[in-house]
């Protein structure tokens, strides 16, 4: 529990802690309770949050784990029967090829979305920083509208934009000379359905990245740019040597959040086409839901949920390790 002073953090990992936010300043010098004596106060303050999380999140997690070892179908559910069946559910899920297809699909889907979101979001954020006030407000307004749209409403709107008949997208494509698209059914194939879902998710996620990234760039000290330009750095060089290092912690953290959010995306896919056509756009959360609730194989569904959580932990483990390390450095 060594107290590290600023600047001695040589962990090498980009310290998210050292975020541009002046907010972190106060904390770096976080004072001990003035008297220095240990009290129960912090624990009491944390108790409600901890209890709420443990009971309402921890309990379902444990319950989910227990259900995954049970033979639980409508009969058992209605009659409140508990029939343990060991690893049968896991064996059933893991031995079939469906599960692994869904895992691959989920990972590819998450990767594609997050790359698009981070790339386009960063570019949009940097554009915001370059614009004059009026134009910036205009673009901000557009971003905020997309950001604030409730997911289900946005999904419904996209169904309308991409509707086979009278959908405006097909009309535009037809007018652009792509006549075979005039009556195209976007929800008829795996790739096109995923394209619409991806467009929807990217459209709704860019604003979070762009606006917050813009806010972060405003905290980059001017002197750094001046120094860079004195050294003869051009626009690109000053981006790579000043802006990017400054934003890196923010980018790491945002990527992590986006990975979680995209991976867990449920209503966008479910409300768009219920994982269809032919189960081909089911990602892990949808698969768990369709198998568990839709087909009423509750035990199997619980096993899939548990495996889903493991996959999520695996793909975020790098970042989690980084955070663990930082928190360690800080104390």
């Amino acid at each position, binding site marked *: 529990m060594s107290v590290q002073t600023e600047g001695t953090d040589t962990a090498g990992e980009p310290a998210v802690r050292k*975020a541009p936010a002046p907010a972190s300043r106060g904390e770096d010098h976080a004072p001990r309770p003035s008297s220095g004596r240990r009290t129960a106060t912090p624990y009491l303050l*944390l108790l409600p949050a901890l209890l709420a999380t443990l009971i309402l999140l921890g309990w379902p997690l444990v319950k989910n784990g227990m259900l995954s070892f049970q033979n639980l179908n409508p009969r058992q559910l209605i009659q409140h029967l508990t029939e343990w069946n060991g690893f049968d559910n896991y064996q059933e899920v893991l031995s079939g090829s469906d599960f692994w297809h869904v895992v691959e699909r989920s990972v590819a889907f998450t990767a594609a979305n997050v790359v698009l979101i981070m790339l386009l979001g960063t570019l949009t954020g940097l554009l915001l920083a370059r614009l004059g006030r009026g134009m910036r407000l205009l673009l901000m307004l557009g971003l905020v509208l997309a950001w604030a*749209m409730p997911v289900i409403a946005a999904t419904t*709107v996209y169904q309308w934009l991409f509707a086979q008949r009278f959908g405006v997208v097909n009309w535009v494509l037809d007018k652009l000379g792509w006549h075979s698209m005039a009556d195209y059914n976007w929800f008829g194939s795996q790739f096109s359905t995923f394209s619409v879902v991806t467009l929807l998710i990217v459209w709704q996620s860019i604003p979070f990245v762009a606006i917050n990234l813009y806010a972060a760039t405003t905290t980059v000290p001017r002197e750094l740019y001046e120094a860079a330009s004195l050294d003869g750095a051009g626009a690109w060089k000053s981006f790579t040597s000043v802006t990017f290092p400054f934003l890196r912690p923010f980018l790491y953290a945002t990527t992590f959040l986006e990975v979680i959010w995209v991976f867990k995306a449920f209503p966008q896919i479910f409300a768009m086409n219920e994982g269809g056509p032919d189960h081909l756009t089911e990602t892990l959360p949808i698969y768990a839901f369709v198998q568990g609730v839709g087909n009423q194989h509750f035990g199997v569904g619980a096993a899939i949920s548990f495996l889903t959580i493991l996959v999520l932990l695996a793909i*975020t483990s790098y970042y989690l390790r980084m955070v663990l390390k930082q928190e360690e450095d800080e104390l």
Partner: protein
Amino acid sequence: MKRSVFGRIWPNATAVILFAGFAFPVYWMFATSLKPTGDIISEDPVWFPTDITLGHFGRAVDADHFWTLVANSITVTVCSVLLSLVIALFAAFALARMRFKGRRGFVVTFMLAQMAPWEVMVIAIYMLVRDNDMLDSLVPLTVFYAVMVLPLTILTLRGYVAAVPKELEESAMVDGCTRTQAFVRVILPLLAPGLMATSLFGFITAWNEFPLVLILNKDIEKQTLPLWLSQFQTAFGDDWGATMAASSLFALPILILFIFLQRKAVGGLTDGAVKG
């Protein structure tokens, strides 16, 4: 010279194109909801509604149980946001201002909780809620939504609390305030923007939540608007006017709230939530 003119044009041109791209779906939702059906199902899109009708809104509002569901959604959302704010405020204060054994453990716990895959735990939650005879009730929804937004609320608020200079609190205490008084009188007012920002995100999460209410509340009188909207779409599939009117009604409160509060929200997340 030429270059600088060019240099000024392209960011602005890109900005206008991007604005159009981001705003269009929202515009198209409202525009469709106001057009007479003949204009909606026309071979060439009617870009600007000239012949405005409120009939679609009428059909959406007259749909069974609409107002009950509005009341349910508002109740659940407001209660869950308030609940999570109060709980989070205590926790955020401890995490931002105090040093104690296990602090890291708490932060990591909330970071992990932020990853909670609620969407895949619906079966377990259903069983727990059923075994406590709480199906078709707004209470479980409220508490679950509160806990769903709790981690992000705590981590964001922590940043805001940390941003308040420690000296302000100390000088209040020198002036004879207790720590609690100093908190309530000095820090809390300064946290107002942070509270608004965090509640905005909580608001959106709770207003949007779909899988839990889908499985927990079968009684239509106890459902919420997202479920209504998704079912409305299924039922009124080809009636895009009514569907877009329903979507507009559902989206409008959040859009308004967001445009008012957005400026306060921006930056707060960078400071607090995302850095964990």
